């Protein structure tokens, strides 16, 4: 167990905003100083382009950039560095997968998603469906807001070619049993893709244990910088994947009318990548290693149990949570109160949470809601944060339901 008061000192944000109760970690986590310093280190000491060059600082930048691939390999237990592609984030990774795999699809084929998907794991597939004549199917969730395995079993048949599923819902906090999902999908010869944006900093993610073909996440949801992420793929998948972004660095030979792809992963990283961002991601991996992702998850689950217990004492609050809730994300609604009004008043008390549709509109429609308020925890949150949130929430509800 870590000392969260001490952990807050790792983040300049808390120095500049000492009163901040930051409960929007599912949107982005705050950035510890060591990540910022690592990125500064690149700009101050070895600012050069990578994989090019003929000079020492370029070689230094390349070495550091490639080291981060090894750090990511360790963090998600990938087989090797050739399985790690740097992207600009989860959304970029999903677009690369959708566009790069569509050549495998024929009319009548099925892409299986869930009702809980973030738009990043929906819109790219909607386009692919229009382009290929394939169709989408959606796994339901249960009344208890859990992944509906019966629905999955019913929808998974030999027409399903791709199963692309979130690990943890960014709205409900539902944890999908992805290992079982991947095993069943594999038995049907379907390609399995996991959106790990919401799990990567909150539980151990072991790609070989999960058994997925691909998995994507963003650095900025694991204490790294924005604008950088990872696409993990098995060697077999990456060999099938057609490069989506074309440009410098991805080819071995270019003629006027043709080109031969470079090796994997270089063929997927066209142009100058976000070098400083990747180096920041390396520092974030280091930070997570120090904190221990399992310890962080345990801490967040303890906080979540406390938050649920406290929220249950406010009669107007309805939590979108079942009997079991083991993640760091929770949505709730307040009877007779618009989620946006609530977020506005909580902001006055320095409580930062998310309100709205959370880029998951089909899910909100399925829930019959126009929006929710969402709290989500990170390594630095404390039970005092929750106490302050609850006090502010009671006060805001009081102001918004005063009929005078």
């Amino acid at each position, binding site marked *: 167990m870590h000392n969260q008061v001490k952990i807050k000192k790792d983040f300049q944000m808390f120095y500049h905003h000492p009163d901040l109760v930051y409960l929007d970690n599912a949107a982005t986590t705050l950035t510890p100083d060591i990540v910022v310093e690592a990125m500064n280190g690149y700009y101050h000491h070895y600012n050069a382009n990578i994989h090019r060059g003929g000079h020492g600082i370029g070689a230094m930048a390349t070495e550091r950039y490639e080291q981060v691939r090894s750090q990511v390999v360790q963090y998600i237990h990938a087989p090797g560095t050739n399985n790690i592609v740097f992207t600009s984030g989860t959304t970029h990774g999903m677009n690369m997968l959708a566009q790069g795999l569509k050549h495998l699809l024929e009319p009548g084929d099925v892409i299986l998603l869930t009702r809980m998907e973030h738009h990043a794991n929906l819109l790219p597939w909607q386009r692919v469906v229009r382009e290929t004549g394939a169709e989408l199917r959606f796994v339901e969730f249960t009344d208890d807001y859990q992944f509906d395995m019966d629905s999955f079993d019913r929808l998974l048949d030999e027409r399903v070619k791709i199963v692309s599923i979130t690990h943890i819902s960014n709205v409900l906090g539902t944890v999908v049993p992805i290992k079982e999902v991947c095993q069943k999908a594999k038995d049907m010869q379907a390609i399995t893709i996991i959106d790990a944006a919401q799990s990567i900093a909150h539980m151990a993610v072991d790609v070989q244990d999960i058994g997925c073909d691909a998995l994507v996440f963003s650095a900025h949801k694991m204490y790294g910088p924005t604008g950088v992420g990872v696409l993990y793929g098995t060697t077999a998948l990456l060999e099938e994947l057609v490069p989506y972004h074309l440009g410098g660095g991805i080819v071995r030979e270019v003629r006027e009318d043709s080109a031969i792809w470079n090796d994997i992963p270089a063929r997927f990283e066209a142009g100058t990548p976000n070098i400083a961002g990747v180096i920041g991601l390396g520092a974030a991996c280091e930070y997570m290693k120090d904190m221990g992702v399992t310890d962080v998850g345990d801490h967040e689950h303890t906080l979540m149990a406390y938050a649920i217990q406290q929220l249950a004492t406010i009669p107007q609050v309805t939590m979108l949570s079942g009997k079991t809730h083991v993640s760091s994300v929770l949505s709730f609604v307040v009877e007779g109160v618009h989620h*946006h009004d609530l977020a*506005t008043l909580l902001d*006055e008390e320095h409580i930062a949470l998310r309100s709205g549709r959370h880029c998951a509109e089909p899910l909100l429609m399925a829930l019959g809601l126009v929006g929710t308020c969402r709290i989500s925890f990170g390594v630095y949150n404390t039970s005092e944060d929750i106490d302050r949130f609850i006090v502010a929430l009671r006060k805001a509800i009081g*102001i918004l339901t005063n009929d005078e």
Partner: protein
Amino acid sequence: MSIHEKIAQLKEYFSVLPGWEEKYAYIISLGKSLSPLADEYKTDEYLVRGCQSNVWLRSYEQDGNVCFEADSDALITKGIVALLLFVVSGHSNEDIRDTDFSFLDDIGLKSHLSMARANGLQAMIDRITHV
């Protein structure tokens, strides 16, 4: 009262409200006192696209001036609309177009700008000034 006088009056009123609680309570009460918008106008045609809450706004002419009616599904948003309409409704097109809406920054709400953007405040102002 001219638009300038109305803005001065609002600024003065907000300056005597001691805290954000009172300021928001006042904004909410303004919203509640807004004359209701008939349901027939709560359609896409009158919807001002905002990120988080819906605002419906209609304008009509009366004695050569522009009048507005509006509603929102969120109380604070509705209050902010009411503030805007208090200032501009019943004035000429030219006067409305020349209105300096920066007074909204001066009424002392910390989160005003960020939240207002989410509320589609700029979209509301655009709609009001482009009748």
